[in-house]
């Protein structure tokens, strides 16, 4: 092929997109999930006369706000191909640290700062082990899951920290306006920030690139280890923030605080359409998944379903929602 020919054919125009972004949104996982959320909402309102009440709904948001704060950072971490299973233990350690500071007589600002910094340090610890030593994150964070909570048990034993200052209660029990809680507001602000970071920045693009093909990302000049380290830091910080909110809401610290929450966070992320293998997912998906999980637990609670059954339902929901697209694919193939 001569150069002249190349230049002629080079006039061939490649369109940006074949489908409009709007059409793509309609066909997305997030839309399907939104339908599920609306369905559960309608079912709930039929199932219990107490459901459609502004204050009850406001209470219901506590079912997911703390978990969702962590889920946003976890979503980025999982998209980048890593995971942090120690988040619930970070909550326990942060809460314990806050209790120690509180008992030493410090005020609310110092307590909150302690909670956040402890989370950050725990995240840094995970991050160093994964990115500097090259250990698999699932193993590292299963280890730190025991380690962090173990420290809380050593400090507290059977006891508990009580007597947080009254201003501290604002984070977990306060309202911004009417029925809108402080936690729900933090959740909303974080949702916007994380959505922008993941979908509109170079950093977010790097997260996707790393999760899809870390080698090609490295060759493309992305500092893979640094991005991963930042993600572990963020996840730790979010766990610290969740710890502030949860401790404030409960008004006390026990070493068993937030037990098992890591799995609910991961469930929320995966339910939101983030591939557990990394590389794909979105923040809007996680937001809707947060509402779905909150609505399901709240609805079951109104129906006086015991907690054990609730966890069965949440588990079945997760497997069902994940399996559906695969089953659909198999049916279409055969």
């Amino acid at each position, binding site marked *: 092929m001569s150069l002249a020919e190349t230049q002629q054919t080079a006039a061939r125009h490649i369109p940006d997109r074949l489908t409009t972004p709007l059409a793509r949104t309609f066909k997305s996982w997030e839309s399907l999930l939104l339908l599920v959320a609306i369905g559960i909402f309608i079912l709930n309102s039929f199932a219990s006369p107490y459901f459609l009440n502004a204050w009850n709904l406001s209470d219901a948001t506590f079912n997911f706000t703390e978990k969702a704060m962590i889920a946003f950072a976890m979503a980025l971490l999982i998209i980048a191909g890593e995971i942090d299973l120690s988040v619930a233990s970070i909550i326990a350690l942060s809460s314990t640290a806050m209790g120690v500071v509180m008992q030493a007589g410090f005020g609310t600002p110092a307590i909150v700062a302690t909670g956040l910094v402890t989370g950050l340090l725990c995240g840094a610890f995970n991050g160093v082990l994964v990115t500097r030593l090259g250990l698999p994150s699932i193993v590292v964070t299963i280890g730190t899951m025991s380690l962090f909570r173990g420290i809380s048990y050593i400090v507290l034993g059977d006891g508990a920290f009580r007597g947080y200052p009254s201003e501290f209660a604002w984070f977990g029990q306060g309202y911004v306006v009417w029925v809108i809680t402080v936690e729900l507001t933090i959740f909303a602000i974080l949702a916007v920030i994380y959505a922008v970071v993941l979908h509109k920045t170079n950093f977010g693009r790097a997260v996707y690139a790393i999760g899809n093909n870390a080698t*090609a990302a490295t060759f493309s000049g992305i500092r893979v280890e640094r991005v991963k380290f930042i993600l572990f830091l963020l996840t730790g910080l979010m766990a610290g923030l969740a710890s502030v909110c949860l401790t404030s809401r409960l008004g006390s610290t026990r070493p068993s605080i937030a037990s098992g929450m890591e799995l609910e966070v991961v469930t929320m992320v995966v339910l939101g359409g983030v591939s557990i293998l990394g*590389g794909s997912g979105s923040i809007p998906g996680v937001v809707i998944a947060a509402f779905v999980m909150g609505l399901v637990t709240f609805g079951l609670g109104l129906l006086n379903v015991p907690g054990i059954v609730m966890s069965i339902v949440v588990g079945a929901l997760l497997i069902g929602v994940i399996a559906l697209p695969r089953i659909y694919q198999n049916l279409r193939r055969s």
Partner: protein
Amino acid sequence: MGHAQTPAAPVLALDGITKTFPGVKALDGVTLELYAGQVTALIGENGAGKSTVVKTLTGIYQPDGGRILMDGEEVRFPTAQDASAAGVTAIHQETVLFDELSVAENIFLGHAPKGRFGLIDRKAMHKDAQAILDGIGAEIDAGVRLKDLGIASRHLVAIARALSVEARVVIMDEPTAALSRKEIEELYELVDALKAQGKAILFISHKFDEIFRIADRYTVFRDGQFIGAGEMADIAEAELVKMMVGRSVDQIFPKRAAEIGEDVLLVAGYSHPTEFEDIHFTLRRGEILGFYGLVGAGRSEFMQSLIGVTRPSKGAIRLNGKVRVIRSPADAIAAGIVYVPEDRGKQGAILDMPIFQNVTLPSLPRLSKNGFTRMAEEFALARQYTERLDLRAASLDTTVGSLSGGNQQKVVIAKWLATQPTVIILDEPTKGIDIGSKAAVHDFMSELASEGLSVIMVSSEIPEILGMSDRVIVMREGRMVAELEGEDLTPETLVRHAAGISSKGEAA
């Protein structure tokens, strides 16, 4: 070397075998004959069709045309089991063996002798395995676990495995690639033993000294076509080289004389503990510098260290007169040195991401505003470079994985050109892509050089090297062995230096 008489009829013959892949005719009516008790060397460049022949003979590929004959009867190998049942067995460069199993189990995995109730007859298996091992002179106990053996012994187990089926035809695909000098000698003895047992052997190697040491006959392929065959005793090395590479080089290469300007990149004493040593050269503006060598000569490893993927142990570079230290690909991109890797799927493209995001990935720092991506600018940049390379794609937001190999390569090249580099390194830029895309890539390379870009091209294809390069550095076993230019740049000199053959035609 015994000058064996050609027996009347070949044990195995390929007659007019054709195999086509999308865009490539891998085999075009080739002929190959293997005789009992003789070693036939299959000679050809990368891409000549050697591995396709091996896969056709072992039932992995089905030919599109032609016949496979055993003892003159037409046979078919629909599966690998059929080929093995017919007595065709292959020893690959890397046979999959199992660490936790015993040597005997490794040898007979999948076809162990069965006793009562269809259970494996362990005693018989052990005895047969030991007999095969003894038969090839391997001092290995069939009962030990594979993981307790060294590399050389493992290789013998792989050979024993190949011989555990009643083999009449043994294919050895670059069997010496991973062996030491001493192990190679032992392998030669083994080949002699197999010959004595009357087996027909197909021996594939790039190394001429080996071929002359061990083969009785030769067959040469080039670009999927049969070029010639005969007895080793009747041919000189120079003639073989000519058959292997000889063609009119000027046919498709659009290399234009670019104006070669000042020195751009100076590399001095680049070394790595294991991969390469003392690489040094100067690259000038508008120049295409070829790097030729056999697979494993250390070319890609050197290039990757040049762009900061791995760290050199020694060495320095100067770019446009300034000393630069490159510690990461990000540094290299910032300095204006970019690398189009050989392994497109792993290192080059992110297959599950859209075309435009692939193209803009290394350019994002420049393209974005305060760290925020700008969609319109991304599409514009991606369009500018992909259209220049004549990319065929439905839209810019389809994934790279949905494109053909040639078009994927265009995306990867577009991605690197979009960074506006000073030096672009292309590693096997046309490997595995169709003829049309190949021409487009060559054309484009030439255009880049004439625009003043400095190009380094790593290639194992002689026509490409000769057709595109202004100057060629030949590497062998991690070292620069020659720098060729002008009249010295011929297929014969390239092959000699790369394979380590002295000019008198003796193996070095």
